[in-house]
């Protein structure tokens, strides 16, 4: 949205970052699913070059900096910073092991700063208005504002930018005004397809990285998907595993094989086969994926799965045995 609406703020942020670290080349990696963003960025870069904001002497300074837009080829995992680098290098989008961190050896082996659009687009504002201005938004360690996407079964969907600290309930009930179907909100998934499902009971959670983490959730990219009381959370858990199976790069074992086994195991649970045993298997699998995966794709897939299981056990069987508390 910001790339389509104000691409220059991103360009400015990248130039500042480039000058700060001595980089002379910047890349904007945009999913091919966002052709408008690609077009807007390319047009803005052309303008910036023409106006000599980009190029040999950035805005009359002795610094050189140029920006190139690269479109992805349809892999979700290429949002992960190291597979993004592989993709930029023209290779298969698979995750690199770290270390070395991209800051030491990144694109084509060179030191590379990788940030999301949100961070880079905030840089000009922070520098223009001062750090205090930025810090005054938000709570705790989560400072500034966040563009939040309200989607799913919600009456007022769309993008809202607001300071950290607002509660989940305020976002869903006040800003989103509940479901579009008019039925009660049963669950919301926060943070994208790998975010946790929160029930109404957790709507007092403030929109804050630490507060979400404390309740086994995540802010992620700020997406919120709303579900009403017709949702089947076992199917949602299955969907998370299926999503991981479709999008896995295939490099690490927990994600490559685990996601497929996850779908199969949840299917068995849904069919009622050895429910107790299979719930244990699923829990072990989530442990293996969460702590064994190479990157966040496999590592975060357990969030939607385990949160669905924890908060909505009734969807996984008529009378689900309570999962034993760990240790």
């Amino acid at each position, binding site marked *: 949205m910001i790339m389509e609406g104000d691409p220059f703020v991103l360009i400015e942020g990248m130039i500042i970052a480039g000058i700060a670290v001595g980089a002379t080349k910047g890349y904007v990696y945009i999913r091919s699913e966002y052709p408008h963003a690609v077009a807007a960025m390319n047009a803005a870069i052309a303008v910036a070059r023409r106006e000599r904001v980009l190029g040999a002497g950035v805005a009359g300074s002795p610094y050189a900096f140029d920006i190139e837009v690269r479109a992805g080829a349809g892999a979700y995992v290429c949002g992960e910073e190291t597979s993004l680098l592989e993709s930029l290098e023209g290779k298969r989008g698979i995750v690199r092991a770290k270390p070395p961190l991209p800051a030491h050896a990144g694109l084509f082996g060179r030191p590379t700063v990788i940030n999301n659009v949100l961070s880079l687009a905030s840089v000009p504002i922070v520098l223009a208005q001062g750090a205090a201005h930025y810090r005054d938004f938000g709570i705790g360690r989560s400072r500034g504002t966040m563009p939040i996407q309200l989607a799913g079964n919600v009456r007022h969907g769309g993008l809202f930018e607001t300071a950290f600290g607002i509660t989940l309930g305020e976002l869903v009930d006040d800003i989103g005004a509940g479901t579009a179907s008019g039925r009660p909100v049963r669950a919301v998934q926060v943070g994208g397809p790998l975010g946790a499902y929160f029930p109404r009971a957790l709507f007092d959670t403030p929109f804050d990285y630490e507060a979400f983490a404390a309740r086994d959730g995540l802010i992620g990219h700020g997406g919120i998907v709303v579900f009403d009381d017709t949702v089947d959370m076992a199917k949602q858990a299955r969907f998370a595993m299926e999503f991981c199976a479709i*999008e896995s790069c*295939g490099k690490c074992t927990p994600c490559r094989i685990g996601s497929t086994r996850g779908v199969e195991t949840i299917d068995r649970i849904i069919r009622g086969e050895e429910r107790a045993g299979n719930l244990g298997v699923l829990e072990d699998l989530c442990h293996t994926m969460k702590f064994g995966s190479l990157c966040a794709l496999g590592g975060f897939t357990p969030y939607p799965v385990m949160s669905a299981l924890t908060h909505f056990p009734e969807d996984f069987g008529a009378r689900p045995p309570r999962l034993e508390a760990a240790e």
Partner: protein
Amino acid sequence: MSLVHETDYGTPRAKVGKTVTLTIDGQAVTVPEGTSIMRAAMEMGTQIPKLCATDMLDAFGSCRLCLVEIEGRAGTPASCTTPVAAGMAVRTQTDRLKRLRKGVMELYISDHPLDCLTCAANGDCELQDMAGAVGLRDVRYGYSGDKHPNPGKDESNPYFTYDPSKCIVCSRCVRACEEVQGTFALTIAGRGFSSVVSPGMEESFLASECVSCGACVQACPTATLTEKSVIEIGQPEHSVVTTCAYCGVGCAFKAEMRGDEVVRMVPYKDGKANRGHSCVKGRFAWGYATHRERILKPMIRENISDPWREVSWEEAIARTASEFKRIQDKYGPRSIGGITSSRCTNEETFLVQKLIRGGFGNNNVDTCARVCHSPTGYGLSTAFGTSAGTQDFDSVEQADVVVLIGANPTDAHPVFASRMKKRLRQGAKLIVIDPRRIDLVRSPHVEAAHHLPLLPGTNVAVLTALAHVIVTEGLVNESFVRERCDWDEFQDWAAFVSESRNSPEAVAKVSGVPAATIRAAARLYATGGNAAIYYGLGVTEHSQGSTTVIAIANLAMATGNIGRPGVGVNPLRGQNNVQGACDMGSFPHELSGYRHISGDATRAMFEALWGVALDNEPGLRIPNMLDAAVDGSFKGLYVQGEDILQSDPDTKHVAAGLAAMECVVVQDLFLNETANYAHIFLPGSTFLEKDGTFTNAERRIQRVRKVMTSKSGMADWEITLAIAKAMGFPMHYDHPREIMDEIARLTPTFTGVSYDKLDALGSVQWPCNEKAPAGTPVMHINGFVRGKGKFVITEYVATDERTGPRFPLLLTTGRILSQYNVGAQTRRTANVVWHEEDRLEMHPHDAEQRGIHDGDWVKLASRSGETTLRALITERVAPGVIYTTFHHPETQANVITTDYSDWATNCPEYKVTAVQVTPSNGPSEWQERYDDLARNSRRIAHAVEPAE
């Protein structure tokens, strides 16, 4: 005997530098900075479970079995990708780690066939080992779940199979193809659960760019990539470390055996030439050793038109001695001679020349280096004082600029090429000076900075032009030259190269290389950091071969690129032991260690030990022997392991010489082409059947170890001993180690060499003596062996072999990856699937002018002769230049080559022949006649076995 076990440290050794100390499971360990936790643990004997890691490859971090806990750090980092840090406290076994590892293994096994008991890798499977190591007892997912895609077994490669159903997608094969071999033939197709190893764009292995080096097979932890021999025979039960008998790289192998049968050859990681890598020949093409065409019984015949008659060893040896004595009585002591073999061991070669000098009483001994690297010996000895390359292969890892002249290492020295490509991928610059656009000019992730596609025969002009640029543009390393070289000679040379007729602009006209390219290459060589020259037979096999070697030495001295790692002058030697054969005194004018036969003190030393007087006159070279035979003064020849009829130039002349002799004794594995003219055939042994040593292109002496009993009953050295005894010149050795002791006693550069030392150190590079007890990896470090480096003026003299109206094209010859030289061995292996015939490479322009299409039969004619073969239309060659290989006797490419040779050493001018090519529809008259002769000559009347 048991299998030689090599520890897998999981990740490569870190560069030696600062060390750090950490604790692993409470135990302190100190390792170089940059070492992985996994390797540090293995150094102290703690094996962390792993599947995707192996120490031939960079860490990848995909299997997630090697996770560890580090005090003060969150999560469970992979020990293969996490470097050690000072004070780090690592735990490799905790309940949490056990649960994770078991969880990962459970996933692996849920997607793996359960046919362990009938699997070819049973007992040699890392997946099996790891399931045991992590204590997996149950696969709760069951086995009915989805399986990763299985495109079906690929058995297209003659030596190994690819069974995707057993693949665990560790990418070790893909990474080995990239990092170790540098071919980039493999990839992972698909993603996620659909990931599958794919040669090229979902091609078969055989149809892909795979060069069948086998690095992927070696890297595979399961049965996914398995040698067909293992599938057929089963797992080996013992192994012996030995040295490959193909090219001059000298790869060390573990011969993995089941009883007397080779199961597979596995490159030995401690091999200092190959560092655990191999090519298709060394790893797979050993089947010739048991080929049905091997001759295992001695044979004799009166005339070469008679069929062979099998006889006892006693009869064959007695006949050899009596014939040689008869000829010497009739025609004089110098009427016989012998040829030592660069395929045989140092010990065997030494004995043959000892037999000739001591037993025949003359110096008519020569070796196949005559036709390959004799100019190297002459040129480097003149400039530096040593007849050998200056570096070890490890040196290339420190080169910043690599100059490749007249060599095609990806075909002819593949393992060294892989090591060179690795360095080039790290950023070293490459200059290729070669008429052909060899693979290294542009191949995956390697591109030459400059390619100088010179006209064959203009090496000296181009190298002198490089020197012109270096001198006239002030790029000479003057302090080096003043300190290390003869300054007066340098000044003469500098004045000579500075003359305008040696400028790139002048040389561009004769060589066809643009002046700007020559200038740019010269600047890069002189100023690009450590610059190393590697060269091959495209340098030596010319009428100015020796001059070219000297021109190379001049460049290295003028720029100070000699005497330290990363630089130097490096001949890539063709045969496994061509360096050794030269070292051992195989040339008619030299005793071992390159000491002239006319030197009284040297000769006296040998005479005292051998108890015989030696002739002080140099004997005949191979071409002189053949000339003398045609003239009627040379009548008997003992040829050990060399096929001069096919390999030497001007085949018709060679045939005439052999036909004029009264007794030709051939000692070989097969009835080779030379044997068609032989009267006595003595069956030789393969490198698998005897003990000895080979010396590779880096002067590295390595053990050859007997892994199976001799199929003919005699090792080659024993045959020479028997002949010597029958000739009245008995020698006494019970084992080749005693021969090496004698070599050490008689040769100053070998005084420190013994089998005990070789066993202890693995290998040594000569000189190995009191001054260098562990050998000499890099030569001329503080001064040249001869004292001051010698600059010699290199006047370009065009070869007399010129194109004209009758023969308007220039033919040059070379080798291909899958075949080896005359092909006696490789043609008798499955390697023929890659190269079943010699082809004539021709530029599309030349082809179109003659109405020739790809695959057409063409007649190739020179003033020496003509042959026919099929055309391959390609832009690898420039217009006006054509190229072929000489691996197949049906082609007889050397019928075409001429009698021109190097002015100093008689090394034949194989690389330049003026020829014409015309469409053809069948074999030439010579080919038909020769084919008849060969068939007739190979008839064997087998001895009748007594009835049972």
